[in-house]
């Protein structure tokens, strides 16, 4: 079987029609000195059977570890119904639903997704999704600048450092100065926030729970931001909203989140799902695609892409964003997950995450040499001060079938003895006990 589409005869006919004899003649216009003069260095062809064997060997090299790592990507349970529904070929296509007449299914699924996100966040409008939380947060920064006509943003030191990097990359191009609001222990310092606020601050950006797992004083932060005329931008963990108040209740202006926790596999870091919602009055500066419900001439309900004049193909350089896509399949997975779980299911997942992480944190805090670093209440994730560098614990854990967490030393040298541990509803009591036992036996009382 040949997998290249053109036969020798096809090529001969095409060259003849063009009026050249050889492929080299066809490329005569390309200067000789920039042409590749050797064959591509590719391995020899192999059979399908051999390819499968080789891929199988590569896959076997993966270690199946019990996951206690988080920092923005979490090992949550994915109900079978999610894959069953998103695998339908009607949804599996990458078609952009510009032509409403032939895209009602896709458009309705996006509309339902937006509705779910609005309910989850207690906000008025949500877009069709963004790449991930980091890009959504960067877009929110840009949006806040356009809304307020102010230049600076204040970013809490509790925002995931990887998100911060993306925000700074965007901000650099847009000439938006980004200033960090220091942490006091494990949450944003209100006094230094108050000092940094002025009439040129567009937004205060906070992550809640923050990347150390700790809850932030969002109500006070919002009050300070609004008193100074700045917007409150919050990055949340959608699972936490099973038990924590929705951002709308503390007057957030723009809410973003990483949707990976909602039925999307870890899959080595992507593709993930950026969630974004805001107040209706800001809808015209919101980036991304937006689906709305309307009626046709006969009064039938129909779904359409709405307010497209916000987008780059019309507004060009004045558009908030130059992203012209969404993560429709991941968004659909999140919709199925949320519909399947419902409010009670989400509350159950959040409650289990909280109970199990509290259980493990107390167990670890009892081990000589280990202390819990968080002083504020935390959700799903916490920081442990370790008697040896955290990376040593992670390396040893892998030998015992455990992925112990994230080494905070990756972000700051002075954090090298801090280990960020995440506990989802998937972890069993047996696994939690095994983890604590491992720490005690290998590193306790050093």
């Amino acid at each position, binding site marked *: 079987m040949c997998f290249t589409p053109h036969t020798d005869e096809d090529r001969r006919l095409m060259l003849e029609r063009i009026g050249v004899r050889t492929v080299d003649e066809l490329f005569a216009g390309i200067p000789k000195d920039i042409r590749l003069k050797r064959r591509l260095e590719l391995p020899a062809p192999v059979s399908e059977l051999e390819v499968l064997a080789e891929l199988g060997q590569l896959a076997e090299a993966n270690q199946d570890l019990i996951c206690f790592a988080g920092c923005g990507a979490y090992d949550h349970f994915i109900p079978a119904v999610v894959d069953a529904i998103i695998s339908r070929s009607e949804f599996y296509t990458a078609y952009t639903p510009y032509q409403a007449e032939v895209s009602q299914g896709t458009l309705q699924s996006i509309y339902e997704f937006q509705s779910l996100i609005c309910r989850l966040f207690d906000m008025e409008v949500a877009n069709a999704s963004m790449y991930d939380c980091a890009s959504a947060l960067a877009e929110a920064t840009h949006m806040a600048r356009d809304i307020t*006509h102010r230049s600076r943003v204040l970013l809490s030191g509790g925002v995931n450092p990887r998100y911060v990097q993306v925000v700074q990359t965007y901000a650099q191009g847009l000439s938006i100065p980004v200033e960090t609001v220091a942490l006091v222990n494990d949450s944003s310092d209100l006094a230094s926030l108050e000092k940094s606020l002025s009439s040129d601050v567009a937004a205060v950006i906070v992550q809640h729970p923050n990347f150390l797992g700790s809850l932030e004083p969002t109500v006070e932060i919002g009050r300070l931001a609004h008193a100074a005329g700045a917007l409150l931008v919050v990055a949340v963990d959608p699972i936490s909203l099973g038990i924590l108040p929705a951002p709308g209740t503390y007057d957030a202006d723009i809410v973003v989140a990483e949707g990976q926790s909602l039925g999307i596999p870890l899959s080595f870091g992507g593709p993930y799902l950026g969630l974004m919602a805001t107040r209706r009055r800001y809808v*015209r500066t919101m980036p991304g695609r937006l689906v709305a419900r309307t009626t046709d001439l006969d009064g039938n309900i129909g779904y359409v892409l709405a307010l497209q*004049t916000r987008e780059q193909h*019309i*507004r060009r350089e*004045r558009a908030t964003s130059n992203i012209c896509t969404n993560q429709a399949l991941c968004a659909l997975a999140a919709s199925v997950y949320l519909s399947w779980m419902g409010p009670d299911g989400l509350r159950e997942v959040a409650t289990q995450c909280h109970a199990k992480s509290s259980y493990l944190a107390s167990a670890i805090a009892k081990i000589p040499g280990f202390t819990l670093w968080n002083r504020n209440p935390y959700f799903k994730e916490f920081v442990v001060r370790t008697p040896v560098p955290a990376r040593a614990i992670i390396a040893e854990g892998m030998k015992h079938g455990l992925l112990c967490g994230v080494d905070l030393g990756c972000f700051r040298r002075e954090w090298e003895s801090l280990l960020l541990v995440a506990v989802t509803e998937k972890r069993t009591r047996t696994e939690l006990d095994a983890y604590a036992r491992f720490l005690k036996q290998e590193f306790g009382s050093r």
Partner: protein
Amino acid sequence: MANIPGDLKYTKTHEWVRIDGDVVTTGITDFAQRELSDIVYVEINTVGRQVKRDEPMGTIEAVKAVADLYAPVSGEVIEANESLKDAPDLVNKDPYGAGWMAKLRLSNPDELKGLLDSTAYTELVRKSEHH
């Protein structure tokens, strides 16, 4: 042919200007509203700010296009037409009256000399229509 009142001044970017002492009222011309077709949203986001001549002072959204409203002269934007928030179609219905967009307090009266009169603007529109 578009309606071009003789008592107004105009810009090359299709704004009209009504002068009243040091306050100028501006909007888009009949020709411009026809070109844009149905206007769905007008945002004057510069109220209270100083703008320079030819600088964007607001955004006009039609069903399939977005255009800027440019400042015809330099000055402080003192007022925006609030009624356009709920009825942007006033721009289509009555571009020189109820569809006005913003008022500026003139900072440099010399700039008024740079505006087009109705004859010069009529010529500009005639050329545009032949494209």
